[in-house]
């Protein structure tokens, strides 16, 4: 089999996804800033699964580098999975536009730049899959993280449009909306156990859903219903709430 391209490969979710795909016979391009920090992890995958793992540097905010990054891949990937995300600090972002911009650009602009390039290639080749890990935070803006949430909302809308566009080319696009996941990013938060997934559960869900060409995946699945309620709470009420 051949390569899957994993973006934001240092994140805990990406690592679990990488192991899952290697276990199922795929080779991997692991992409991140300072990707050499992933050497021990790449070795882990090679020993576990005897699959090829290539580490590649990429800065998602360095838009000009994206085309050459993709061009240098000798063997084009079968699919791409983005786990890129930057939670940032909501309060800081309210006061300092640089933080707000970093949140928006990392979660949205940068991925758009790269996904455009990949989507065009997949469309031409009439094959491939694209998985974007967005967030339930994009389903409705809340005071505690609406900068992150709005960037994810934009990304969710982008993926939905891309799915629509690439349907005819038989390129499948899947939107993943994780709820709480126990990762480095959430290590300081007090998450409710029943609503919190482990990274390998998320990876398992993503792999299975992608293989079945699902469109939108909530993980854990209860989040589909939690978000249904949150989305349908009337605005006059929602604006008074602290959730």
């Amino acid at each position, binding site marked *: 089999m051949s390569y899957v391209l994993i973006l934001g490969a240092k994140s805990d979710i990406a690592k679990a996804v990488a192991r899952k795909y290697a*276990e199922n016979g795929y080779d991997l391009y692991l992409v991140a800033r300072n990707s050499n920090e992933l050497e*021990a*992890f790449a*070795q*882990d995958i090679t*020993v*576990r*699964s005897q699959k090829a793992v290539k580490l590649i540097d990429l800065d998602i905010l360095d838009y000009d580098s994206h085309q050459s990054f993709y061009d240098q891949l000798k063997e084009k990937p079968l699919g791409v999975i983005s786990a890129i995300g930057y939670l940032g600090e909501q309060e800081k972002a309210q006061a300092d536009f640089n933080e707000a911009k970093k949140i928006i650009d990392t979660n949205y602009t940068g991925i758009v730049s790269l996904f455009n390039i990949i989507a065009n290639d997949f469309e031409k080749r009439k094959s491939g899959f694209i998985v974007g890990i967005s967030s339930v935070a994009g389903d409705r803006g809340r005071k505690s993280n609406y900068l992150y949430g709005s960037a994810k909302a934009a990304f969710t809308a982008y993926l939905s449009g891309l799915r629509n566009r690439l349907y005819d080319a038989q390129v499948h696009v899947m939107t993943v909306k994780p709820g709480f996941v126990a990762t480095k990013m959430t*290590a300081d938060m007090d998450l409710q156990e029943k609503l919190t997934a482990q990274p390998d559960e998320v990876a398992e869900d993503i792999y299975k859903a992608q293989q079945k060409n699902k469109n939108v995946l909530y993980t854990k699945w209860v989040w589909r219903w939690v978000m249904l309620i949150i989305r349908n709470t009337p605005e006059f009420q929602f604006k008074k709430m602290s959730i």
Partner: protein
Amino acid sequence: MSLKSWGGYPISKSIEFKFENNDSLKSIILEQESVIARGNGRSYGDSALSNNIINAKPHDHFISFNEEQGLLHVQSGVLLSDILNSFVPRGWFLKVTPGTKLITVGGAIASDVHGKNHHIAGCFSESVESFRLMLPDGQIVECSKLENTELFKASCGGMGLTGVILDATIQLKRINSQYINQTTIKTKNLKETFDTFEKYKSSEYSVAWIDCLATNDDIGKSLVMAGEFGNDGKLGYKSKKKLTIPFNFPSFSLNKWTVKIFNWLYYGKVKNTTSKQPVDIDSFFYPLDSIGDWNKIYGKNGFTQYQFILPMASSYDGLIEILQTISKSGKGSFLAVLKLYGKANDNYISFPMEGYSLALDFKIEKGLFDLLDELDQIVVKYKGRIYLAKDVRVSKAIFEQGYPNIDKFRELRKTYKMNDKFNSLQSKRVGI
């Protein structure tokens, strides 16, 4: 956070520390007053509980594999199940495996675990080429049978009380099938059960399920299972799907059920005195793993496993007395497993010795600990000992009598100042 191990009792309030690398682990060890390493929390009682826990489970990289020699180098948080997923299809298996694959390599070393082949292959430490251990001062030492042998012998079976195991090189063994040819033998009483174990001594694997409520002439009635790996080249191993038990069962007595299950097997399913069938790895070695959180069926008060071993010479008399006591108490056990063990190794506080071991599960309820205290007296009288990996209540006095090398272990702990740094609820209770 509140933390518990497999038995669900006790529940401790603990702070959990995770480490990114050896430097961060060192700072945790230096900064905290007292800590204990924790793997996957499959010890039954309080071996992996204390106020401060170092979670070694995320530390789970495979580092290298030497195909010629079958030597696998992994970090200590790697689960045995991960090793099987990767290596059974390539024709390798663990030299020694306990009855669950959901434990870490660190936990396997720290409890010096054993399995159905103890009479032939010994404990997990037999398969350990070497490991690296972080001591109380943050220093990292390589331990093996040739290097830092004292630390090796203390740490294998040392229940995390010598430091944090960072990574280990273990020897895998070749297999040519994922099936085990199993022979099941029905026995009528303890004498027959013992004779059967002796008869099948050269079988690679052997274990028995014993009916703990049998009385009089039937005492020791069992199903003995012996097995050898097949040779059919079928290695297509895929972990079984798990059933899960979603909530704690209401606390009713399980006795009736267990007895029924045993009887169903004994009188119904297993038709002949001796029967043979091929069984896959998961069903043979890890029957309980396929039922997810089966520990929840004991209800929210939890349960414990009482596992003891008696030396060969006193095994028969001791077991009869213990089985009689249990049968009289009416607190039969869901699972009772009997096994003939091989020679003890020279690790300081490893559990196994040559003789018979019995493991019984009990729901935690009023009167249970009195019964177990009574059993302790019999175990000690017959010169036996209790397995710390399962224990949650044994007293210092009973524990010490079973482990003649305990003072050597304590001395080594003092020399390296381990007793100031590495302690679990269990080690404090039994005074090590």
